[in-house]
């Protein structure tokens, strides 16, 4: 029916109407193409009387990487999907009146079907099948282009429902011993496995726990022993876990208060009696443990403040300088390029000893070398748009901080974050990559290397270097580990070698802190989000915009096997910068204030809900840049105190004290 796409424009009739384009006809009016197929569109312009008018027509695609069209109307199909091409008749070039749109526009739908499925295969099949058990079958469909296709439905079929029956979600229940064929159908391809279901050999089914008692947040590993009559382990015997609980007295209507994963790792969020149930075919084993409150809550005492109330404060670094005194450096944001140097030797008497001003609006990041003698500050918003970084001599800030070098080569786009390690500066360049700059002689920095991902649309936000491995935070690409000398992969500052990466679905990865647990020896990357999904409040004096996001806990034993095992998520606030020391996590949580979290032991689930939060603190300041609108940028533990940078009020020093408000309405 639709051989022509016609758009009619009702024009005011004039004597010249017959000359005016009234119709744009594109043939064919829609396209169905296979990937790689080509076609040609023909456009005809007619006036109101049906006469052909000689006018140029513009072609373009609204999804040019999927369906392309050139100026001559030649179309090429690149990727499957429903796409739209546009043919446009521009207005008369001689008509110079103001106008916004073309005279006539025609949309040409293009359908490019997915390539057909080429194969369907079974994944992760157990080595044996037992009567009376249930196994979830996993499959994968690959199409003729080699792409894995999750949108293709897979239908399972059994040759003998008595032996192996199927449910709607792909679980196979093995009824009696025997042989059966399970076939997976996907479009026109299929695949089959012949399975032999053995009689259930399990004679002894017992459940054991890695510990007898626990606190909330402690991970208890449950293990099933499935033995045959001879006392031998039964291989690949499928076990499922479940949990139920009776909360401690005084906790009412708590909802779910604990969980156990498919590997039997259990963690409680509230105290009480928690029962873990293991099921394997007809066998069931039950164990109950008493979970006590974690009781790690501390209070926060303000020790001192270095107020910055006339502008926003960005990041901080606290260190001992070669002169033997303790200092903090804070940056500034959206102002006039200041960095502040504070003597914090006595945290109760924080006082400013020097300031450095550079050509910038924002000094977002500040870092100090391991020997405490050299600092690097980042520049954004330079008046000449040549941003880069500035190297400072901070050997004795009390005697003055000295600019020793500026470095902006190929860092024009702005340096948002930096890190110093082993006499090299790792400097982000316009959120795209990082450059490695040698500062063995701080007065003559020079670039020795750089690292940039090759993924589509890649970006970078932060970097942290420890033990010769650089951990960058890369939004959608997640945390990326790179050998720069300590990864045993031949990496060096002038030859960064990628070790591995871990990305998570939200794409909000903003910061990361690598950490080896003092209590378990396990290595983690704690990855922080940054996101602002809430509507803006543009009222004058409104508090800073509310953030979202959380801390992702990634267990990273092998570079190619990162696994996200836990999170710390404050429901109504969003994370920013973080620091870890002695199994305690310190987070600048923007409007959520300072958060201090116990991360000792194994980690699973949501740490926030497990009573692991040691302390929270909101640095309210009625005289701050935005009064009483705390917005903590970052925190650093140092010599028994916690220093924090607050966006609206400057530098603070606090310390943890025994809490005198332990009762929060119910047992913790």
């Amino acid at each position: 029916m639709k051989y022509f796409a016609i758009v009619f424009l009702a024009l005011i009739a004039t004597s010249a109407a017959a000359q005016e384009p009234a119709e744009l006809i594109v043939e064919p009016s829609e396209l169905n193409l296979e990937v790689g197929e080509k076609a040609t569109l023909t456009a005809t312009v007619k006036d109101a009387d049906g006469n052909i008018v000689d006018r140029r027509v513009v072609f373009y695609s609204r999804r040019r990487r999927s369906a392309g069209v050139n100026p001559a109307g030649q179309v090429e199909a690149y990727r499957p999907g429903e796409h739209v091409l546009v043919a446009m008749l521009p207005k008369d070039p001689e008509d110079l009146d103001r106008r916004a749109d073309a005279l006539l526009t025609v949309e040409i739908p293009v359908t490019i079907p997915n390539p057909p499925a080429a194969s369907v295969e079974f994944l992760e099949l157990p080595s044996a099948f037992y009567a009376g058990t249930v196994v979830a079958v996993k499959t994968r469909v690959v199409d003729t282009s080699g792409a894995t296709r999750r949108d293709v439905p897979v239908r399972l079929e059994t040759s003998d429902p008595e032996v192996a029956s199927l449910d709607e979600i792909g679980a196979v229940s093995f009824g009696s011993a025997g042989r059966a064929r399970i076939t997976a159908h996907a479009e026109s391809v299929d695949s089959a496995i012949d399975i032999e279901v053995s009689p259930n050999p399990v004679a002894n089914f017992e459940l054991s726990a890695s510990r007898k008692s626990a606190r909330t947040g402690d991970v208890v590993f449950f293990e099933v022993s499935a033995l045959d009559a001879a006392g031998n382990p039964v291989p690949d015997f499928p076990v499922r876990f479940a949990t139920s609980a009776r909360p401690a007295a005084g906790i009412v209507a708590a909802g779910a208060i604990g969980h156990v994963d498919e590997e039997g790792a259990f963690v409680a969020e509230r105290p009480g009696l928690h029962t873990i149930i293991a099921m394997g075919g007809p066998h069931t084993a039950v164990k109950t443990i008493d979970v006590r409150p974690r009781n790690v809550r501390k209070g926060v005492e303000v020790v001192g403040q270095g107020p910055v109330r006339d502008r926003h404060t960005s990041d901080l670094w606290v260190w001992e300088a070669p002169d033997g005194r303790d200092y903090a450096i804070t940056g500034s944001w959206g102002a006039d390029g200041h960095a502040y140097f504070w003597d914090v030797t006595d945290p109760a008497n924080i006082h400013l000893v020097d300031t450095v001003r550079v050509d910038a609006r924002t000094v977002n990041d500040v870092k100090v070398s391991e020997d405490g003698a050299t600092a690097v500050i980042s520049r954004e918003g330079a008046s000449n748009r040549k941003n880069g970084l500035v190297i400072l001599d901070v050997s004795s800030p009390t005697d003055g901080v000295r600019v020793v070098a500026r470095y902006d080569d190929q860092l024009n786009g702005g340096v948002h974050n930096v890190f110093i390690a082993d006499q090299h500066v790792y400097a982000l360049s316009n959120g795209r990559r990082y450059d490695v700059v040698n500062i063995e002689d701080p007065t003559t920095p020079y670039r020795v290397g750089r690292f940039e991902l090759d993924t589509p649309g890649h970006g970078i936000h932060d970097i942290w270097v420890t033990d010769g491995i650089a951990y960058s935070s890369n939004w959608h690409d997640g945390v990326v580990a790179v050998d720069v000398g300590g990864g045993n992969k031949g990496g060096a500052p002038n030859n960064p070698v990628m070790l591995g990466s871990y990305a998570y679905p939200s794409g909000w990865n903003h910061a990361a802190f690598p950490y080896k647990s003092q209590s378990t020896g396990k290595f983690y990357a704690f990855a922080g989000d940054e996101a602002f999904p809430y509507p803006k409040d543009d009222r004058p004096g409104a508090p800073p915009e509310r953030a979202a996001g959380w801390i992702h806990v990634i267990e990273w034993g092998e570079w190619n096997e990162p696994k996200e095992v836990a999170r710390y998520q404050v429901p109504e606030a969003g994370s920013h910068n973080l620091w870890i020391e002695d199994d305690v996590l310190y987070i600048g949580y923007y409007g959520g204030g300072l958060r201090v979290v116990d991360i000792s032991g194994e980690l699973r689930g949501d740490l926030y809900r497990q009573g692991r939060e040691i302390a929270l603190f909101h640095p309210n300041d009625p005289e701050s840049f935005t009064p009483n609108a705390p917005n903590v940028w970052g925190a650093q533990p140092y010599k028994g105190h916690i220093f924090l940078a607050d966006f609206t009020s400057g530098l603070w020093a606090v310390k943890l004290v025994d809490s005198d408000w332990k009762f929060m309405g119910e047992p913790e």
Partner: protein
Amino acid sequence: MKRTLLLVLAGLIASAIGAAERPQRGYYVYVCAESDDTVHKLRFGPSGFEVVKTIAVGAFPADIEGPHGVNVSPDGKYWFLSMAHGTPFGTVNKFDTVNDEWLADVTVGMFPATMSISPATGLLYVVNFDLHGDMKPSSISVVETATMIEVERIDVGIMPHGSRINANGTRLYSVNMMSDSLIELDTFTFEVARTLSLVDDTEGDALLTRMSAKAKPTWATPPTAEGKVYVAGNGDNIIYEVDVDSWKITNKLDAGDGMGPYNLDVTSTGKLLVATYKSGAHVGFWDLATGQELARVKTTRRIPHGVAISDDDRYAFVTLEGVGGEPGTVEVYDLATRERVDAADVGKQAGGIIFWKGEP
């Protein structure tokens, strides 16, 4: 203290202007404050020159995203804003001119800057300036403004910056700062139609890919009725006159050492050119018939950036970036007298500017 003095200075300028010098109609401009993530709507009228609205822009309040370029749709109903920084690519954002409400955005290339909209098609052309890292050829993105979809990306030279479209919307004239070149883009086929070196005889693709950086052109005006495009040579202090028909340089206006002409605008009559001198902190007024500079006025703040001429050719509005914590400023010049007649402070690093409308 310094800020206070600047504010006092701006106030003195304003108060020194007699009411008689104020216009009887209102003139509206949009101005970007690149280091404040704000856009300001200003009106110059009988009551003076004032910011009538400040619009916070950007998606990441913890990062400065850098509103750089601004333009208004040919029908005046929408304004478009290029945001320099993203993660990492920049965006073009669409707002309505009535409520200044954000409507949509589209991710384009690295550091999108100057934008032009074809009155023939409504398509928007934005240069991806890409001043970061390696100097390499960049692109111009084409955006369908109704849907805010990038429909094409056209390869051009190194650091494409100023660009303007001709009156009928068929040709875009754009400069490549580090390739020392002017290009003419066919806005219907999305192809580079012609290239012109400002400093030698290099042609074609070689002109786009080469690193030259002698003239460092930063701006191109739309062609005048006489078919002349004017190009600001920020690096060699020359304002080039290019004849569109012959596609040759027909005159060179010497702005003088240290001036660094940056942005340009020409009156609708094609007789007067106004240039910002970014390095020299002046504004220059050129008689295009004689090629003579009629006046050169020192700006009240450092780093003049953009210039936009009113629809009736009476006034030029000039943005001054300032340095560090200084506010940005917008100055108004009377084109009859070539004198500054008013000024208003806006957010930090005032840059992109576009004339919206005059009323009544």
